[in-house]
Each structure stands twice: as structure tokens, then as C-alpha cells.
């Protein structure tokens, strides 16, 4: 049977708000998941404590519970696991985002690992080695993450940004920068007490574009064309990262036909545009009649062509 919120916090029913708060603080300090990174059960315990505290600090709910208007489980008002799943800092600390909060910015070089190896193999690492290892881990480099638009990544852009430490940095993002690419800003890191001046590393994240996708320096998009343009041919305007480009659609163009627009991608890349034949919103009598007349006077079946090819 589930414990009631008083039992979870270890207080009696007569406890006042201050006693409840004090009991919660004491348990929260002990069981907070971020202060217990390797203790999986701390998560459930903390959730239980938080739910009990949230319940008891609500005078209305507490009163209803005390009067027996809701049962010990408090369904649906009280449940020790209430509050749903939440993510703690420890869930991100080991990931790429956590690097911003790490001492060395997530830099672990082979020398560091050798130092740790030494410490693991009992006594073969001298105090001086430890000091050296510590010095190496105290990197002066700093790591940031920066989000930019697809077009900014494609064509390059200059940005002035204020970093968390208040420093203002001018960043020249080069044309064609890729998602996840790191830019090194020499001597823009922190200065350590031993005089070492670190570099700043900015990891670029490129936001997706509404129409364009990218493979290397080539850009891909899709453009709708009408059935009349597919049959009769046409010249249409296609949006590229360099602006609108006129493209000649030959008569008899199939759906999914891909056209290469040379040099219209990123840097020396190309733009590939696929056409998609789109029906009119309404098929009117004129169109129906024209198609019916044509179908009756022609022996055309695209599936026959496919069968012959197979």
C-alpha cells in the first residue's frame, strides 16, 4: 500500500508549514537525482518526496485529505508518483550540451586518459604526474553553440554575439559551413592563472529550411508544375540560395524529373530541382472532355510500357 504524504516526508499530521518545508528540504538534499548521479532509485524517491510536498503545501488539498474527503492514495488528487517524468541536469551533463558546463569544455585528450590509466594501476603515477594531469585538464579553451539559418550557412554571415561571460565576439561564419561544424576563434577563450590563453570553439547548428535540403554543397528542392506545363513545356522560376533562376521545362516532362542548375548550390555545388505535377484544384468539364477525347483516340497505357521494360 502506498504511503501517505505525511509518512513520505516523515512528519505528523499536526506539522505546520515550516516543519513540512524543513522535512522536504532535508529529504530533497539527500535524494535529488542531480546530487546522486549513479543512484537510479533516487529518481523515484525524489519524485515521491516532491509530490508529497506539492500536495501538503496546497492547503485545500491538505485539508480535504485530513478530513478524509480523499483517501490515502488520494485518487485522483493524490498519487506518490504524480508529476510525470521530468529530465534532470544529469540526463544532459554527459551529452554535447553539458560541455558548456564542464571545466575543460569536454576536451579529453589521450594524455588525460594516460594519466587516469596511471592512477588506476596503483602507485605508478607520481604526485608530479597528477599535477601535470590536472594542469592538462584545466583547459583554457571555451566551447559555445550557435544556431544559424540555412541561408546564413549557405552564403556565410557575420554575427556579433555576446557570450555567457559577457564578452562580445565577432564571428565570421564562412560560406558553406556545415551543421555541427566547429569554428575556432583563436585566443578568444579564457586566460588561466598560469598565463595560458585559450581559444573559443563555436559549434554551429544549422536550422532546417522550409524548402531546401542539403547534401554536401548540393541543394535539393521540389517545385510544383501544372499538367499543362508538363505536357506543353514552360519556363518557370525556381528559388535557389542565390535567388530566382529561370528553368526551361521541356514538353512531356514526367513527374519527379530532376533538373540540375549548375553552380547554383552552395559554393561550387549545384542545385537539383525535382518537378511535381500537380492537378488543378477543380477538374472542370473542359479538361475532362479534352482528356476523354484524347484517351478515346489514342492507345496509351503507361503500365504497358512498364511491363515491356521488365
Amino acid at each position, binding site marked *: 500500500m502506498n504511503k501517505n504524504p505525511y509518512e513520505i516526508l516523515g512528519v505528523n499530521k499536526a506539522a505546520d508549514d515550516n516543519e513540512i518545508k524543513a522535512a*522536504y*528540504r532535508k529529504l*530533497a*538534499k539527500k535524494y*535529488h537525482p*542531480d*546530487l546522486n*548521479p549513479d543512484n537510479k532509485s533516487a529518481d523515484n524517491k525524489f519524485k515521491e518526496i516532491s509530490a508529497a510536498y506539492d500536495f501538503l503545501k496546497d492547503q485545500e488539498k491538505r485539508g480535504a485529505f485530513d478530513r478524509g474527503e480523499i483517501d490515502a492514495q488520494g485518487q485522483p488528487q493524490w498519487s506518490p508518483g504524480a508529476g510525470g517524468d*521530468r*529530465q*534532470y*541536469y*544529469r*540526463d*544532459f*551533463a*554527459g*551529452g554535447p*550540451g*553539458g560541455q*558548456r*558546463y*564542464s*571545466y*575543460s569544455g*569536454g576536451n*579529453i585528450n589521450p594524455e*588525460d*586518459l594516460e594519466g*587516469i*590509466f596511471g592512477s*588506476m*594501476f*596503483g602507485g605508478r603515477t607520481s604526485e608530479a604526474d597528477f599535477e601535470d594531469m590536472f594542469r592538462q*585538464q584545466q583547459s583554457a579553451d571555451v566551447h*559555445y*553553440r*550557435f*544556431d544559424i539559418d540555412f541561408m546564413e550557412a549557405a552564403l556565410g554571415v557575420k*554575427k*556579433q*554575439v*555576446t*557570450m*555567457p*561571460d559577457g564578452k562580445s565576439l565577432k564571428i565570421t561564419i564562412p560560406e558553406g559551413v556545415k551543421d555541427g561544424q566547429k569554428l575556432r576563434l583563436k585566443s578568444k577563450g579564457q586566460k588561466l592563472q598560469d598565463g595560458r590563453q585559450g581559444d573559443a570553439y563555436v559549434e554551429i547548428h544549422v536550422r532546417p529550411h522550409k524548402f531546401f535540403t542539403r547534401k554536401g554543397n548540393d541543394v535539393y528542392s521540389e517545385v510544383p508544375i501544372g499538367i499543362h506545363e508538363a505536357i506543353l513545356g514552360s519556363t518557370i522560376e525556381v528559388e535557389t540560395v542565390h535567388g530566382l533562376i529561370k528553368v526551361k521545362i521541356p514538353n512531356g516532362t514526367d513527374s519527379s524529373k530532376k533538373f540540375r542548375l549548375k553552380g547554383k548550390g552552395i559554393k561550387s555545388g549545384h542545385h537539383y530541382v525535382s518537378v511535381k505535377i500537380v492537378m488543378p484544384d477543380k477538374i472542370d468539364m473542359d479538361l475532362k472532355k479534352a482528356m476523354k477525347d484524347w484517351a478515346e483516340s489514342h492507345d496509351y497505357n503507361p503500365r504497358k510500357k512498364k511491363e515491356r521494360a521488365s
Partner: protein
Amino acid sequence: MRRVDDVLTQMDSLIDQHILEDFIARGWVRPMRDETDYVFDEVDIARIRLVCELHIEMKFEFDAVDIILSLMDQLYEAKACHSRLAQALEKQPKDVRKAVIESLQKAS
């Protein structure tokens, strides 16, 4: 990515903009910033929630929060380092791994 207002709403008004800026000034939270304002990602949100719990709910003083966060960051970094080491060991031939395990057992 979230802006200051989104973060304050997400924290159920536990903190206001002034307190959030104080967390940032103390280096407890280190969001990125674009041309207009701070931008927060998931790790920042989790960090702010943690700082709120430590400082506001558990009533740890400023110095204590400094020490806790500093130790915690070092701990997570050490864990990441050991995880990398374990991954490197996993890629070694079986006899190398065996020798390492034996050495560890002798050392303990």
C-alpha cells in the same frame, strides 16, 4: 531553443527575470546569446531547475551553490572521461582487455 519569457513561464513563476539574470551573472547558468537576447536549450532549462531547487527550495546559500555546482561539474566531467576510457578499452582485443581487468583486480 527558448527565450527568457518561455523559461520564466516554464519555471512556474518561481523566479523572475532579475533572478534569472543573477543566475547567469554568477555563471550558474550559461545560455547562448544571439543578436537580441539569451537563448536557452534543454540543458540550460534543466540547469535552471536544478539551481532553483538548490537555492530557492532547499535554501542553500550562494557560496554553497557555487561549491555544489563546481563539484558536480567536475564529477560529470570525470564520469565522461571514464566513459571515454571504457569505450576505448572496449575496442581493444580480448587479451588486452583481459590483461587490463587482471591489473585492475591486482591494484584493488
